[in-house]
């Protein structure tokens, strides 16, 4: 059975979603089987969370609210893990 999940999370690290965090997000998203998207809460459309290039196009600065959404058997786990990464500021200062 296909499930969907989504969660809102705020970008906390000072530098925002620059290349390294984008890569971490994409690599993590790629581990999950279903579609995973990330979207700015202030925009209408999400991008493929498995694509670094697309994540970089969000230009998400510190404080930006993101909506992470996933489908598939592991949707819940995907959303949880990605949101945790963002919330932890990607272990950056």
């Amino acid at each position: 059975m296909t499930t969907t999940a989504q969660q809102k999370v705020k970008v906390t690290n000072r530098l925002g979603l620059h290349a390294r965090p984008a890569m971490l997000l994409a690599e993590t998203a790629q581990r999950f089987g279903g579609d995973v998207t990330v979207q700015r809460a202030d925009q209408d459309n999400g991008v493929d969370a498995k694509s670094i290039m697309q994540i970089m196009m969000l230009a998400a600065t510190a404080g930006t609210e993101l909506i992470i959404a996933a489908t598939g058997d592991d949707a819940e786990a995907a959303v949880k893990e990605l949101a945790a990464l963002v919330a932890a500021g990607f272990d950056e200062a």
Partner: protein
Amino acid sequence: MKLIDIVVQDAIAPTLAASTRDEAIAALMDMLVDAGKVGQSDRDEFIKAVIKRENRGSTGFGNGVAVPHLKQASVKTVVAAIAICAEGIDFNALDGNPVHSIFLLLSPEDQPELHLEAMEAVFGSLSQETFRRFLRQASTVKEVVTLLTDADTRQLSA
């Protein structure tokens, strides 16, 4: 932010002759030095820093493009240089493919939002297959500039 505002027109190399990643990065930086955007005294340090960043994680994000970059306190505005290399360069890219189009991007260290806006502009174009193909086919500075202008005004079809 528009590509045409950050790409230094005197720092576009449509036919770069470099065989390694580090040579390419040095050549891109030299164009910014010659264009007066990077001080001669900063050159070596900047090249070293870009390579160090690259060694921590390749900015060869796939599809033949790489965006090596650097945030530095002494950089006052976002500037970019572009090189196109027909032969392809090993950038240790994520998809393992050689890189044909390189954007070197320098941003002020204390304005992360500027850096993100520049990255958005760069990837907004590089993520389009049409843009990547046209860029790789460009053989003159003028062709590259025209392409950047078209991309800025979204005249490229996806």
